[in-house]
């Protein structure tokens, strides 16, 4: 059922999205985005530069954060703004959980906007995306 502006309250949480990263997903994201930085695709290189292996593209986490919000509003065209801080590294094997919580509602000039704070964390509670903010128009 579509999200209703009237029924939303500050503090409401949106459905979470969780996924366990695999190296194949990092290769897929590299191909889809064109970002073949060896820190994402080459395990040996990642070890040599002290990262302990490959690390996920920060922008792939941002993409999954956007997906979490647009799945909730059921229309990707309603996402007007997304801001995130890349706070920690994510690696193959990590299970990331993407979350959002309503922080504000406003009506300006005929548009009804909802602001959310968003974040992503690993299975160990390490915050991968912090200080996140999303704005959707309903």
């Amino acid at each position, binding site marked *: 059922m579509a999200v209703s502006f009237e029924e939303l309250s500050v503090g409401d949480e949106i459905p979470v999205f969780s996924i366990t990263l695999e190296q194949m997903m990092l290769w897929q994201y590299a191909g889809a985005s064109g970002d073949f930085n060896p820190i994402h695709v080459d395990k040996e290189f990642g070890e040599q530069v002290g990262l302990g292996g490959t690390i996920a593209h920060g922008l792939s986490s941002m*993409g999954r954060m956007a997906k979490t919000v647009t799945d909730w509003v059921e229309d990707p065209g309603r996402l007007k703004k997304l*801001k995130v801080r890349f706070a920690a590294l994510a690696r193959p094997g990590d299970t990331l959980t993407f979350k959002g919580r309503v922080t504000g509602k406003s009506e300006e000039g005929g548009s009804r906007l909802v602001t959310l704070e968003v974040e992503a964390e690993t299975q160990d509670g390490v915050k991968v995306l912090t200080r996140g903010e999303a704005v959707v128009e309903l």
Partner: protein
Amino acid sequence: MIDHKFIGKEYPPTEYEIGREKMKEYAHAINDASPFYHDRQFGKGSLYGDNIAPPNFAAVYNLMGCASMFMDPDLKLNYAMLVHGEQEFEWLKPVKPGDVITTTGKIVDIAEKGNNDVITYETRSTNQEGDLVTVGRATFVIRGGN
């Protein structure tokens, strides 16, 4: 430390044509199965009249011009120590297959935070009709200073 005289420096526009399969591939790579991207009939029947790009496909068409700043011989960034600190996208209009997107990039701030240098880079994408579709604001941190 990076010379603050580079605040305001602009980089030449890049052009990117949105391909239907490419944006679907991006959606797939972020595990996003929305019919707005993947189902042509659904897209036709939607209020957009076609499929639209996943919002974060901006990571491709809006951010691709960053390379010209990273490799700028005047700026001489220590690329090996550069990390993407923050990213913001503002979406003003949906982007669809066949759209030709032109993006310009500009350094809007240079600051020192502790031992690090921080560059804020703004990217503005317009479509073939001249409408502003996406504005990006990226902060890049050069660890240990430039």
